[in-house]
């Protein structure tokens, strides 16, 4: 089980770093924003796996915060940036 939790967490971290390519390339602001939202979801999964593996339930609270607060960043993007920064 140890190997499984860690292996999947490692794979997810690789995924997250691969997703950075989309943030760097864009081209539109929405592309970058969506990629970073995906990171939030991936980080939640990594944290839950680490919480199981290292038996630290506090990490589930960190995951909870990421899950809840990712939406706030998305709302800020829609309300403050929106389409005005498209194709920058």
């Amino acid at each position, binding site marked *: 089980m140890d190997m499984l939790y860690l292996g999947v967490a490692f794979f997810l971290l*690789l995924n*997250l770093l691969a997703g950075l390519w989309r943030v760097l390339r864009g081209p539109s602001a929405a592309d970058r924003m969506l990629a970073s939202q995906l990171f939030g979801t991936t980080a939640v999964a990594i944290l839950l796996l680490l919480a199981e593996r290292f038996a630290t339930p506090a990490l589930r609270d*960190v995951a909870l915060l990421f899950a809840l607060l990712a939406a*706030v960043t998305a709302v800020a993007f829609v309300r403050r940036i929106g389409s005005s920064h498209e194709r920058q």
Partner: protein
Amino acid sequence: MEKVTLLIMLFDLLLGLGLLWLAWQLLESRNLFKAVVLFVAFGLLMALAWVRLDAPDVALAEAAIGAGLTGALLMAALAKLPSRDKSEPLADEKGHWLLRLALLLVAAGLGYVVHSLPESAPGLSAEIANNLASSGVNNPVTAVLLNFRGYDTLLELMVLMLALLGVWSLGIERSTREEPVGPVLTTLVQFLTPLLILVAAYLLWAGADAPGGAFQAGAVLAAAMVLLLLAGWPLQGLLTGVALRLMLVAGPATFVALAGLTLLDAQLLAYPPQHAGKLILLLEVAATLSIAVTLAALFLGYRPRTNKEPG
């Protein structure tokens, strides 16, 4: 067993290199929006790094501030900037080599300090563990922040207050035109705001026994307020004048009052052990409120009009 250790090492290595690379990319970016998104991603990886460094309390604070507030704050600030051509240099390039030299010196100094650190320092954790019973809480981090080193937290609250005063000195509210709010955002806000308030209360209460506490709870509560502000709720209309100022000073004022009382009795912020738990809870509730309102007021970026000031 061997394979597991290797995998953990690979994970940490990837995390560390990823952080360095992200930091480089976001500092080098000419596109400010890209830099903001990279900074949010940086906060996310940083929280994972704190988890790996066995500091869940810091990871929790990083998640609350980094995921909830910094992104929203930076994007709101970016929206207020006049739009620029991306080929335009960010600042005067001439002074850059001087800046780079200075940064190199700082990096060398830091490297020397890290190198000269003792291999294993005993630290104060044993002493804290011995005195935890008299602190009134079971989480050693909360015990240090609110009891053993309470004056640090008192001064931190003052720093937050100073930051807000700085922002307020920049000007008062200007009327901005907001786009109408659609049904999706309204529904999201209706579901998410109560959840955020609940989680903030949970973190505040959990702080006595587990990672959590006033800063994390305050940041989550502030995120709820930011969400309401983004959805066009006239919070700044409700939070003006005396009401706002009372909430801003609730934390620092409670702290200072308690500091005065304990100074008369014995020693600065040395609580009687039988009341320590209750006093810490009182301080944390007041601090949570102040931190939340201060962070939300920072997000607004201007001083809200009082009712007496003409619009």
